[in-house]
């Protein structure tokens, strides 16, 4: 629909004129850059291409995934390819499924001011603040449910004035949920057993040496669970 139309964007301050129908990621590549970090699946799933931008004339700082967001005229963009955080090490088998676990590993969650900045920054439209708050009161099921679509891009953690790393909280909650609240489901246990028994070993070996063209074709025509 924007065929032939060009827009002006600013990549780390440098003006670029790019086709209007490109994603931020493709526009940056169009401008001549090559990604060494900050690009992953290119499908909106991996969270590697977190980006922030302002538009000319607006004070608002907005978050987006570079591989998903289509460029707009006047965007001033930079990527946040990595968000520093300390991911705690724990043994899931030794944890308690209640609020005390969140407080033990991530005590800073009680600093949450409910300002909602995290929610505003989330490119996945997740109610981040609501799930951090649910974790504070030990509601593991709600934390897991609300954070389910999190891809760990890190934008919430970069914007939180209380310096909380919400995506760590969500991940811990989902682990606790599947271990203690929901319990391991039968199909997962069955599949784990199959993997252990080597049921898929020969298929994997075949794929590893497959001709790239055949592999591409196989991928594009794979069976999808959600159509």
């Amino acid at each position, binding site marked *: 629909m924007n065929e032939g139309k060009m827009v002006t964007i600013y990549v780390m301050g440098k003006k670029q004129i790019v086709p209007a129908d490109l994603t931020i990621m493709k526009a940056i590549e169009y401008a001549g850059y090559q990604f060494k970090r900050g690009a992953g699946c290119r499908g909106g799933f991996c969270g590697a291409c977190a980006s922030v931008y302002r538009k000319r004339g607006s004070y608002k700082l907005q978050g987006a995934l570079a591989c998903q967001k289509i460029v707009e005229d006047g965007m001033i963009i930079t990527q946040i390819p990595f968000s520093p955080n300390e991911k705690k090490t724990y043994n899931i088998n030794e944890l308690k499924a209640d*609020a005390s676990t969140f407080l033990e590993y991530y005590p800073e969650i009680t600093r*949450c*001011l409910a*300002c909602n900045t995290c929610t505003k920054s989330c490119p996945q439209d997740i109610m981040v603040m609501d799930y951090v708050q649910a974790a504070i*009161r030990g509601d593991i099921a709600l934390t897991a449910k609300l954070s389910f679509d999190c891809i760990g891009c890190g934008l919430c953690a970069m914007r939180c004035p209380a310096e909380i790393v919400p995506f760590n909280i969500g991940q811990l909650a989902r682990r606790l949920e599947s271990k203690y609240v929901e319990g391991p489901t039968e199909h997962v246990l069955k599949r784990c057993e199959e993997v252990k028994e080597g049921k898929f070993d020969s298929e994997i070996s075949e794929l590893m040496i497959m001709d790239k063209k055949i592999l591409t074709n196989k991928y594009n025509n794979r069976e999808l669970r959600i159509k």
Partner: protein
Amino acid sequence: MKLAYYPGCTLKTTGKSFETSALESAKVLGLELVEPSRWNCCGTVHSLVKDDVMHHLAPIRNLLRIEQMQASGRIDEKRVVTLCAMCYNTLKRSNNVFNNNSDLARKVGENFENETSNYSGGVTVEHLLETIRSLGWSLVKDKVKKPLAGLKVAPYYGCLLLRPRGIGIDDADNPHVMEDLLTALGADVVNFPFKLKCCGSYHTVEMKEVVADLSHRILKQAEEAGAEIVATACPLCEFNLGDRQILVQKKYATFKSIPVVYFTQLTALAFGLEQATSFDENKPDPKPLLKDKGLIKGDLK
């Protein structure tokens, strides 16, 4: 009557017995307490700094949720019932600041840009004790199935239900709402001079000794006045007066122990809702005393 009920984090973690006993007792009085589908921490401690917009976002956002509940017909009136004394204090005071400081109210509103509506200021914040009082003590009396006859209860208010003056649920120097309730439940109310003294609050985290000293002073007074059990309306007071008794006993060899429970647990007990009392969660254990008084049978959860 359907009223909004704001639980707060503690009632979902270490203060579950407060919530269970309150919700079940409220039902007997014809109150359906409805929890908001979305809520956050109350803000915990009220900010005294005049331009501290950030610390008002949490309490005001909760009040906005109450307003949204009323708009969607989930509750009958634009008011919210609280149980935790700290939540009551924080929500009530922030509401007052919001309504009396238009500049702050505007700034709070600007931070609510991704909410579907803005807060109007119109929610009434009240404590369950106020709600019950407004229904009338005779209604409470009518619902009593097992009067707490012979149980000598010292009501303990602490700070946050009564102070600062003007936001309290009762007279700041001579409150009697808890006495009135306990009397209606058939208990022998013990008046003691330290019922308004501070329990030490959050000093319990870093300065446990201070809390042990303060708790000892309060509990000793209650005992000397003839109390067998202390009733409170705050999870932090319950912890400081109850769980901290282990430290009190270490510091003060002559001090034995006295059970500390929520006023709602005694209400549930008097209403014949034994299963909702959750006395197992209190430290020290109030069950031996209550068994002795013939108020509970045996294996209660």
